[in-house]
């Protein structure tokens, strides 16, 4: 399955993904209307600033192969699709115990203030490409299969290698 892969070296910290995410998960799905909505639409991707490196990294649900959040959820509000591996959250079942938040290794389970339930990435089921990926101006976020990403990286590495060899030949 495809997943949202992050290429941190490309992230400019513009937070476009965050806003696109919030808009996609709003009632209206429209930026200008979404900013006026109550309850406030909430993002599920977080651009984390790393002061030590003066860099930003977008963090979003990894849809782990063995997602700890689904294991600990006492009400099965969090469930993982056996085939697609997508971890979804059913807010009707959520009791707001935040055990998922506690065990999430990436800290990407948020809280919806008004409903007091968890919010997390659902890979935008109504879209071909998740909103955050589409919003990323530098392709720091890509929606791709892990295998393919490795392929892309190999190609990039090969290119560098080839350049290096040419440079040497010259």
């Amino acid at each position, binding site marked *: 399955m495809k997943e949202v892969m992050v290429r*941190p070296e490309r992230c400019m910290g513009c937070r476009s993904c965050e806003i696109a995410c919030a808009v996609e998960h709003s009632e209206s799905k429209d930026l200008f209307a979404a900013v006026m909505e109550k309850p406030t639409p909430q993002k599920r991707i977080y651009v*984390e600033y790393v002061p030590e*490196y003066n860099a930003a990294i977008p963090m979003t649900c990894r849809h782990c192969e063995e997602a700890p959040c689904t294991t600990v959820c006492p009400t099965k509000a969090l469930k993982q699709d056996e085939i697609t591996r997508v971890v979804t959250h059913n807010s009707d079942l959520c009791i*707001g115990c935040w055990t998922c*938040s506690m065990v999430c290794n990436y*800290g990407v389970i948020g809280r919806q203030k008004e409903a007091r339930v968890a919010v997390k990435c659902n890979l935008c089921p109504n879209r071909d490409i998740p909103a955050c990926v589409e919003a990323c101006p530098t392709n720091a976020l890509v929606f791709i299969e892990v295998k393919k990403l490795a392929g892309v990286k190999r190609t990039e590495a090969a290119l560098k290698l080839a350049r290096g060899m040419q440079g040497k030949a010259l």
Partner: protein
Amino acid sequence: MPKAVYADLSRCIACHACELACERENENSRISLQVVRDLAAVPVSCRQCETPLCAVVCPGEALNYGDSGLEYDSEKCTGCRLCVLACPFGTAELRAGVMERCDLCQGKETPACVATCPAGALFCAEAESIGGNIRARRAERIKKALASPASAGRRVNR
């Protein structure tokens, strides 16, 4: 929003200090440490759920979820134990007809279990802040890993 005691399971060393601190403060320990297959330890205490099932099932309206979190009125409690049955974490107990659960050591700045934790694994926080802390740490790790592939702290030749 209400706070709760959370654990960073990667730090817990299964020392049981939380239990004993709680027991000293509250007579009976309201936090319990479970060691799972000798691989990890998990302190379990009331999760301070925001849609608490114990309150949902309470027939006598002794348990209510209000602005300040779960409220318990022992006067109205009939001791029916439905709350104990409903609690998905097994952290509600009925002792002498009174429901007992972690109340974050009311009146104390920090719950005793959190204050005593030698490994700093327990923390008392609002749910919203947990993710942020974990994210910040994780992001730093990722960046660090990418920044220097030889992260073993290569010896500068001295």
